[in-house]
């Protein structure tokens, strides 16, 4: 958990207050200037009224060049970022043809399958020639190919469940499955920092939603006891069913879920568990089987396991793995299976090949090497950052590491300065994180070599000194690996 020192909180609040005041001043002058121009709305209500888009107009647009940077190559360890310029203070950005080669510390490329791979790409191209780019049909009609059936079996055995079902997009998987499983009269208890797709799915289902404190099994138990004893709101009838939704790795915190405790609480109170492994499948665990393997939880204890193929497998789409009855029920009722175009066949082939590489079925040990590499890289990077005095969140073994920035001015400063030194980082602010807790998020990949990581550390350290985000004291007694390597060289 993040502990915000008072001084930092005050200075951050002061900065936001200043930005807000300036924004209001600008709005005031804009209203005066626009009062003279005729309105082109002609009786229609405006798309955004009043302060609805204040944050977008006055805070986000000023630093718009830190987000949405286009690239012109594969999102591998090094990639080409397109340079952009603006003529009107970042309101509109224009592309140039110039590119800079940067170190990629922002893409979700945990196992390095993002670029063309020697085993996967030839097979993907073959399947593209055979099945073409799309089936143009829903899975329940004519969109079911041999590849889809093969991948479902493969995913089920990989994850350790009896059956699985595929969808073409990870976001839609959550939004369309949760309404099919629980409806009115049911209760969904979700972690307070769950992803937007889970929140949308929970809202779309019509069930009551309650939130428990992030990663706190004791509070989950309290909420469960209170809710089961109280029953449905107003009528106090007993709940039809209760589902607890947690994630494997929380993408903005880098923390692992406290899965064994959560499972034992849910078993005690007969609630069902839904585990979203979007970031953890393929990236953690000795053989890449996710957070269950890492924490020693039997997959049979989790009722529904969901994951996506975008992060570790370098493809697109999502899956649900559960018992045969649940998958049968979902195939009959889930709207994403009945109404949505089936997953593109080359993307399916990419996942099949990636899983085969991870399991070692391609005849080499590249998979095991990649898994060991990402674990080593993550732990090395995190340790070095902590030694340098940065405030880094997240657990060991997790490839996602947020570095706290807090102050809104430091967000563009950090991002632009790093880009100038050819390191591409991702900075996140409100509304994806709480207002005062802006951060830079590093995603480590198995395709980063040791030299890449050391270069990244050097640049981040220099920029961190410039910007002033080394909130913790630097460890002086042990020399860092950077200096050690410099001595050897």
């Amino acid at each position, binding site marked *: 958990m993040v502990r915000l020192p008072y001084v930092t909180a005050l200075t951050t609040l002061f900065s936001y207050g200043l930005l807000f005041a300036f924004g209001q001043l600008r709005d005031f002058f804009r209203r005066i200037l626009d009062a003279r121009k005729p309105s082109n709305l002609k009786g229609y209500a405006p798309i955004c009224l009043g302060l609805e888009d204040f944050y977008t107009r006055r805070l986000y647009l000023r630093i718009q060049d830190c987000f949405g940077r286009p690239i012109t190559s594969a999102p591998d360890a090094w990639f080409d970022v397109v340079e952009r310029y603006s003529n009107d203070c970042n309101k509109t950005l224009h592309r140039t043809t110039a590119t800079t080669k940067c170190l990629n510390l922002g893409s979700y490329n945990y196992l390095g399958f993002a670029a063309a791979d020697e085993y996967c790409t030839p097979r993907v191209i073959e399947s*593209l020639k055979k099945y073409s780019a799309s089936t143009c049909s829903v899975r329940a009609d*004519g969109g079911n190919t041999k590849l889809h059936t093969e991948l479902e079996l493969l995913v089920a055995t990989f994850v350790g469940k009896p059956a699985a079902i595929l969808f073409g997009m990870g976001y839609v998987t959550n939004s369309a499955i949760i309404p099919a499983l629980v409806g009115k009269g049911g209760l969904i208890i979700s972690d307070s920092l769950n992803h937007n797709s889970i929140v949308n799915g929970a809202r779309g289902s019509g069930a009551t939603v309650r939130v428990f404190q992030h990663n706190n099994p004791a509070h989950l138990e309290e909420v469960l006891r209170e809710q089961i004893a109280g029953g449905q709101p107003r009528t106090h009838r007993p709940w039809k069913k209760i589902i607890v939704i947690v994630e494997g790795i929380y993408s903005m915190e880098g923390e692992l879920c406290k899965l064994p405790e959560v499972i034992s609480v849910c078993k005690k109170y007969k609630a069902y568990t839904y585990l979203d492994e979007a970031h953890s499948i393929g990236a953690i665990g000795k053989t890449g089987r996710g957070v269950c393997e890492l924490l020693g939880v039997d997959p049979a204890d989790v009722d529904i396991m969901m994951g996506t193929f975008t992060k570790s497998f370098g493809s697109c789409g999502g899956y649900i793995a559960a018992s045969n009855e649940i998958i*049968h029920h979902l195939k009959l009722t889930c709207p994403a299976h009945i109404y949505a175009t089936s997953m593109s066949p080359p993307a399916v082939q990419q996942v099949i090949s990636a899983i085969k590489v991870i399991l070692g079925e391609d005849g080499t040990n590249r998979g095991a090497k990649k898994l060991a590499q990402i674990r080593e890289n993550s732990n090395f990077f995190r340790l070095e950052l902590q030694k340098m005095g940065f405030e880094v969140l997240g657990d060991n073994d997790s490839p996602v590491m947020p570095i706290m920035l807090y102050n809104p001015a430091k967000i563009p400063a950090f991002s632009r300065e790093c880009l100038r030194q050819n390191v591409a980082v991702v900075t996140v602010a409100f509304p994806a994180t709480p207002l005062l807790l802006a951060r830079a998020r590093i995603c480590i990949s198995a395709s980063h070599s040791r030299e890449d990581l050391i270069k990244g550390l050097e640049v981040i350290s220099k920029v961190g000194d410039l910007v002033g985000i080394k909130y913790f004291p630097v460890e002086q007694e042990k020399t860092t690996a950077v200096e050690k390597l410099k001595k050897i060289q």
Partner: protein
Amino acid sequence: MDMALPVVNATAAVLARVSAAFNAPLARAVVFGVHIDGHLVVEGLLIAVIVFQLSRKSYKPPKKPLTEKEIDELCDEWEPEPLCPPIKEGARIDTPMLESAAGPHTIVDGKEVVNFASANYLGLIGNEKIIDSCIGSLEKYGVGSCGPRGFYGTIDVHLDCESKIAKFLGTPDSILYSYGISTIFSVIPAFCKKGDIIVADEGVHWAVQNGLHLSRSTVVYFKHNDMASLASTLEKLTRGNKRAEKIRRYIVVESIYQNSGQIAPLDEIVKLKEKYRFRVILEESHSFGVLGKSGRGLAEHYGVPIEKIDIITAGMGNALATDGGFCTGSVRVVDHQRLSSSGYVFSASLPPYLASAAVSAVNYLEENPSVLANLRSNIALLHKELSDTPGLEITSHVLSPIVFLKLKKSTGSPTTDLDLLETIADKVLKEDSVFIVTSKKSNLDRCKLPIGIRLFVSAGHTESDISRLSSSLKRVSASVLSDY
């Protein structure tokens, strides 16, 4: 009698003494000209007691929260429903497995069949140029884009695709989504919030219904494709409602309805929209690349200038033979979605090879507008040949590439209807090697339109394919529906 007198005497004596005490001046004190008599003491005491009682809290029965033991008991007693209902016998979940590309001819379960189940309207599946551009993309960019659009997931092919589509349609800008159905259910909540008014057709498909539900606005449905019903609904909502000027109002329609094959009359909708000041959200998944002289969609078909339609969304999984979706409109409309549309901001971007396939597909359509004439002649031929099918009737529009057949006489229960239609489809596949499908419904879908057989016509079908389908369908429906 003997006892009574002394008792009466004693009581009288006590009373006399008490009244004397009451009326006796107390210590001969005079305060402000008032003699302090004994009764004043009693009255003072009474007032003190009254004030004391008033100042105490009113009596409430004590609240007894549940004790830990009671909560334990309740938790032990509670039995949840099973997570999913038990497997029903006879429920069909196995779909035919394709072993080659889903073009006009495909291989299903080892046999070569004529394929009327893929929405491959322009016949672009298997097109050499598109496959070559995809291969180039795959070798350059890999398969996935590994990030959302805000965090290095924006690849130059996405930007090229957005500007190509905008130029093709004649709008200022467009925005790409990574999945067909997520387009509409992200666009609607981005523009419609709690308190807004939406008027929607009752035949819209599940993704639109989900978007309407997530937007938390007031939704009013009008009769399917009935302009009189739409006009009266709009009139009712705006008449006398002074506040209606300040809230945002939208009409949501599809160009070609997936659930029935009807085409929305856009010219009348635009007239109504301008009269009542509503914005139009048009879902063009099945008409983009199909309707209009050059395939630019419903607006071109009706000759309506594209600026009059506020928001157009479409999935690219149909005519363009790729995946993903786009939304287009004015600059304000598109820019607003880049930060507030959840399916755009919180999801990984479209794989780059699908974006380059979309660009090639639009290029192909621009260079070969004759493919639309092929498609239209195929649809017309199919309508002519199927017009006398025993037991089934065509309910879709003559220009719609989705040809919708429903039972002339329904058996009364939707499950038996579905069984009959599925039997017809199975027999057609097994006996005559023609692959057709029924329209399937999820139990979360609240659309009440009847189900039927949906035929997806492609420009790649030949006349012999169509005659094979019609003769097979006539034969099988005659045998299956002969008892009904």
